[in-house]
């Protein structure tokens, strides 16, 4: 009784937060980005342990489209009575063409667009319901070449990392031996550092009493980056009577959830189990605020501080087709101008000709006058 009396009850406050979050649920938007055939869809299904998306066999057989598209998959998943709205954003067509110049544009536009949309909603006087598709994490799938990053990878990652939490992963890593993988990781890390690409790392607890276990876990995650992953929706007997997600080869079983086979568990921990909140909050506090600041600074602030700064008009995405149409229109007018100029030149020539004709007409008359004057003068002389 005495001990309870002395307590105000402040230690229960985190539990209140827990309850509120539990009953409100959460939202997580994950973008997967990479060339086709790197196992993006399989990974998503493996991560959430349910077939959210069927591997699109139709798309596989169809000729590759010229443009990068945006495909959003929406799901409400419930685990232990906690419900999470999951949005998976796929970018089919990325990196699949001969000329992939600017193929990151659709991805960048999408990320910016979601920030923009949220900003506009936030500025309204009435905003009880908001639609939020801001991207909390971008998984960038690197082809397991064993060599290095391609210029397209570098350019795209650079741009993503300035707008969202970028997590590069080595796809289908079971095609690399342990040594090859280690070398590949080192090479990728070097490029990432040299190119100043900012990748998401679990924040280290800066409070006075950090949890040593959590610190160690964060350190391990950082050391394993970029995560080497494999995905599988198939389950096999691991030899001990357990059915586990794995890939079966004649020479052995590659276990998805085995830390010595791949980094799947680490990536899952980063995405969901330990750092989901960090991803959500850093998107809100860093990336969204940076975008908002950039957009509003250009707009010029209002004098009344209680008025929200009006965001400038949403910019148009960089669609090459739009540019073409614009150029065609400009060309049409240039041609028209040329045609008119031709007409005016002809007209001017006509005027010059006419002037010449009139001049000679006048000259003719003048000649007559002169002739007459001469005659008159002669006549006058004769008269005297």
């Amino acid at each position, binding site marked *: *009784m005495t001990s309870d009396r002395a307590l*105000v009850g*402040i230690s229960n*406050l985190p539990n*209140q*937060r827990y*309850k*509120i979050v*539990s009953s409100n649920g*959460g939202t997580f938007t994950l973008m997967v980005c990479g060339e086709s055939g790197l196992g993006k869809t399989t990974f998503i299904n493996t991560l959430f*342990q*349910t077939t*959210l998306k069927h591997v699109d066999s139709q798309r596989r057989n169809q000729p590759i489209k010229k443009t990068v598209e945006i495909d959003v998959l*929406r799901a*409400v998943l419930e*685990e*232990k*009575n*906690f419900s999470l709205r999951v949005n998976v954003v796929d970018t089919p067509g990325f990196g699949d063409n001969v000329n992939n110049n600017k193929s990151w544009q659709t991805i960048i536009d999408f990320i910016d*667009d979601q920030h923009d*949309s949220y900003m506009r*909603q936030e500025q*309204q*006087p009435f*905003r009880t319901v*908001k639609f939020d*598709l801001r991207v909390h994490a971008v998984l960038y799938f690197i082809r397991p070449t064993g060599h290095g990053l391609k210029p397209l990878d570098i350019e795209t990652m650079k741009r993503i990392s300035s707008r969202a939490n970028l997590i590069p992963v080595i796809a289908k890593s079971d095609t690399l031996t342990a040594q090859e993988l280690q070398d590949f990781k080192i090479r990728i890390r070097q490029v990432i550092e040299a190119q100043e690409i900012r990748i998401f790392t679990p924040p280290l607890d800066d*409070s006075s*009493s950090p949890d040593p276990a959590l610190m160690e876990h964060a350190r391990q995650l950082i050391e394993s980056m970029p995560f080497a992953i494999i995905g599988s929706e198939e389950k096999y007997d691991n030899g001990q009577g357990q059915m586990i997600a794995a890939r079966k080869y004649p020479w052995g079983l590659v276990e998805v959830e085995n830390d010595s086979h791949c980094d799947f568990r680490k990536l899952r921990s980063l995405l*969901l*189990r*330990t750092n*989901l*909140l960090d991803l959500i909050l850093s998107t809100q506090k860093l990336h969204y*605020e940076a975008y908002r600041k950039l957009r*509003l600074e250009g707009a010029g*602030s209002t004098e009344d*501080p*209680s*008025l929200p*700064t009006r965001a400038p008009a949403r910019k148009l995405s960089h669609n090459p087709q*739009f540019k073409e*149409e614009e150029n065609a*229109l*400009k060309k049409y007018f240039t041609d028209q*101008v040329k045609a*008119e100029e031709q007409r*005016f030149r002809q007209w*001017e020539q006509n005027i010059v*000709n*006419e*002037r010449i*004709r009139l001049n*000679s007409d*006048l*000259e003719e008359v*003048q000649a007559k*006058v002169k002739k007459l004057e001469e005659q*008159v003068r002669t006549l006058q002389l004769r*008269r005297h």
Partner: protein
Amino acid sequence: MLASGSPEEVAPSNTETKELESTPKVKQEELSPVNDEVSISNGNGADLHQETPQSNERQVLPDQPDLKVIQRKITGYVGFANLPKQWHRRSIRNGFNLNLLCVGQKGLGKSTLINTLFNKDLYDLSERPVTEMADLKLEDGVNPPEQLEEEQPTIKIETVSTEIEENGVRLTLNVVDAQGFGDAIDNTDSWNPIVDEINSRFDQYLDAENKIERTVITDNRIHACLYFIEPTGHCLSPLDIEFFRAVHEKCNLIPVIAKSDILTDEEIEKFKVTIKDQLNEAEIKLFEPPKYLIDDEETTNRSDKLHSKIPFAVVGSTSDVSTPDGRVVRGRAYPWGIIEVDNEAHSDFVYLRDLLVRQYLEELRERTSNILYENYRSEKLKNLGIKQDNSVFREFDPDLRQKEEKQLHEAKLAKLEAEMKAVFQQKVNEKEKKLQKSEAELFARHKEMKDKLTKQLKALEDKKHQLEMSLVNQSANSPVQTKKKGFLR
């Protein structure tokens, strides 16, 4: 007449026609309407969706795209169910904060209750009676009546801050005390300074939220208002009700019956019923503890009980007293017994503390932020003339986005085309006029000169004719002259 002239000679010897030469050359730059500065700065999304005037007053969601949402229950352990745990950890790191407003007349034990609630000496109680004495002197009318009106005790708003830590959880507590409320003779509009205080804290938050740079926003908004009701046992005073009306939509109002130990249980019950009826009648909204689906029966029962205890009848005491059975408790000792603060059977103090701290502090903050502040903000922005654009509230749909983009693009193209066309047409017209003028001038000039020359010609012809005539006459007369000459010869 003009056609008769044949253009044999090119070089115009005549100086009068020289100005016809200076026909201006057509310049490509002048004519070209292609302008890269053409932008669509005005063609933002709002233009695409015409708004109805009614929708300016509230949030009306536009038609949403028909999107498939997969619903799944997961049996295995994926791990996102850890999110509340992650929040739990994060909240300990961030710490908590409560801004509590206290309103009530002097002598109702406000400071004592605050000290009891937070188990800390926020207010030094030993010095209080002295100041109250001084104030009383003033109110007793020592001064002449005219001066009394000016020197009426005005409401003083004072904030006391402290930090409390328990098991590594930190709470920053700010108690805002509105001193002097209800102490005057005429209390008309005496709640205004308090309402102003609440509003200005909302304004401050709104300004911070609107800033371009806003990484850290300090939340100074009032999260709860403890209102001390005088334990009369009758009913609420008109001033109580007026105050409730003024603030109940701006902060979480928590009415408490102060110093309830002077009322018997039956009196308290009756008093509570009367107060509840009065609150209902005046349509005063109070904070209601929410229910959670995950709550067990015991928790739900406790929450129901807490709700039923409002308005809480409380006693405060920071002094330790010994009970006859040997316990040391916080309470007040009377000759007829000891009232224990922390005993649910003696007062509602425990329930009040549950509401304010132990169970619902975060919910008080949530309601402040999500409902009370939002309402204030909506009203304020509306009054400032900010128009609601409901078209922005839409689920993202790639197809729709593409359509929109196309519309925007087409609008841009149309604008570009219209602009180029206008410039083009203008330049063409100008040029045509200029040429027509040159032509007209040429003909006019020619006509003028031709007329002049023709006149000249005519005059000369006349003169010639005259001369010829006179010559003929002369020759006709000549025989005579010759004769005469001959005569002279």
